[in-house]
C-alpha cells in the first residue's frame, strides 16, 4: 500500500502528557505537567481579563468593560431561561464552568498549545462535580421526594418498575455522557486537523494544497465547536439543575 511506504506523523502525539517538574505527595504522583500548566494559564487568563477590564468600572463602559458585561448577561440570561428564579444563587458556579471550558478550548486552538479538555479525566472531573452538586441540591431542597424525579407524571402504575429502571440508568449515566461529549469533540477535532495537515505533507507541494485549504476550513469549524461545546456543557448543567430544583 502506498500510504504505508511513507510514515504519517502520529496524530495522537499532541495529547501526550509531559512532566514539567516532578512532585510527589503521600506516595501519589502529582507532578506539574503540561496539562496542569495550561489549566493554570486558563485560570490566569480569565481572572486577569476580568480584573483588568473591571479595574475602574464606569457608568459609560469602555470596550473591555462591555465584553465583561456581555459575558455576565449571557450567563444570567441562560440561568434565567433554563434554571428559573431559584437558580440565581448558582450564578458563580455556572459562570466558572462556562469560562473554564471556553478558555481551555480556545487556548488549545493556539498551535503547539495543549488542550486539557481533550483529556477524559479533566472533563470527567468537571462532569462528576456537576453531578454531585445537582444531586446534593435536589436532596437538600426536597429530601426523599427527590426520588419522584425518576417517575414522569401521569404514568400508568404498571409501567413504574420499567420506567424507574430506565430513568435511574439515564440519571447515573449523565456524568459519563456529559464528559465523553466534550472530550470526544475536542480530541476528534484536533486529531482530524493533524490528519489533514499530515495529508498535505505526504501529498507533496502541488497536490498538498488541497488538504491545506481543507485544514483552514476545519480550523474555523473547530473554533465553532470549541465555543458550542462549552455552551452545551453549561446549558446541560442548567437543565439538570432545573430538574433538581423544580422536579419536572
Amino acid at each position, binding site marked *: 500500500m502506498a500510504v504505508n511506504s511513507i510514515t504519517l506523523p502520529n496524530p495522537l502525539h499532541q495529547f501526550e502528557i509531559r512532566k514539567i517538574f516532578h512532585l510527589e505527595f503521600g506516595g501519589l504522583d502529582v507532578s506539574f505537567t503540561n496539562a496542569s500548566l495550561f489549566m493554570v494559564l486558563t485560570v490566569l487568563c480569565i481572572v486577569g481579563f476580568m480584573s483588568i477590564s473591571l479595574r475602574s468600572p464606569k457608568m459609560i463602559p469602555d470596550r473591555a468593560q462591555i465584553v465583561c458585561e456581555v459575558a455576565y448577561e449571557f450567563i444570567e440570561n441562560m440561568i434565567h431561561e433554563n434554571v428559573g428564579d431559584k437558580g440565581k444563587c448558582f450564578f458563580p458556579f455556572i459562570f466558572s464552568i462556562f469560562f473554564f471550558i471556553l478558555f481551555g478550548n480556545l487556548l488549545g486552538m493556539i498551535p503547539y498549545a495543549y488542550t486539557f479538555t481533550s483529556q477524559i479525566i479533566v472533563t470527567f472531573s468537571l462532569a462528576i462535580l456537576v453531578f454531585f452538586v445537582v444531586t446534593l441540591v435536589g436532596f437538600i431542597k426536597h429530601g426523599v421526594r427527590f426520588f419522584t424525579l425518576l417517575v414522569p407524571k401521569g404514568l400508568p402504575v404498571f409501567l413504574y418498575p420499567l420506567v424507574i429502571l430506565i430513568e435511574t440508568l439515564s440519571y447515573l449515566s449523565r456524568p459519563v455522557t456529559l464528559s465523553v461529549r466534550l472530550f470526544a469533540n475536542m480530541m*476528534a477535532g484536533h486529531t482530524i486537523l493533524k490528519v489533514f495537515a499530515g495529508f498535505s505533507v505526504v501529498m507533496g507541494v502541488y497536490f498538498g494544497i488541497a488538504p491545506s485549504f481543507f485544514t483552514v476550513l476545519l480550523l474555523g469549524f473547530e473554533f465553532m465547536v470549541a465555543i458550542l461545546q462549552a455552551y452545551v456543557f453549561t446549558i446541560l448543567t442548567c437543565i439538570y439543575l432545573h430538574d433538581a430544583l423544580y422536579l419536572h
Partner: protein
Amino acid sequence: MDVQAAKMIGAGLAVFGLLGVGIGIGNIFSSLIQAISRNPESKSQVMPIGLLGFALTEAVAIFALVIAFLILFL
C-alpha cells in the same frame, strides 16, 4: 488477513454511524428553517434549542470518529 488491513476495514466500518447522524442533522436544520420561516418572531427562542440539538447529534458522530481513530492509531 493482514492485521493492518483488518484495522483499516474496521475503522471504515466504525464510521457507519455517520449515516444516521447525517439524517439527524438534516432533520434538525430543516425543522429549524421551517419553524423560523413560519414564525420569524420565534427565532431567538428556537435557535438555541436547534443548536443544542445539533451539538448533541454531532456528538454521536464524534463518538464513531473517536472509535475509528483509536482503531487506526493506537
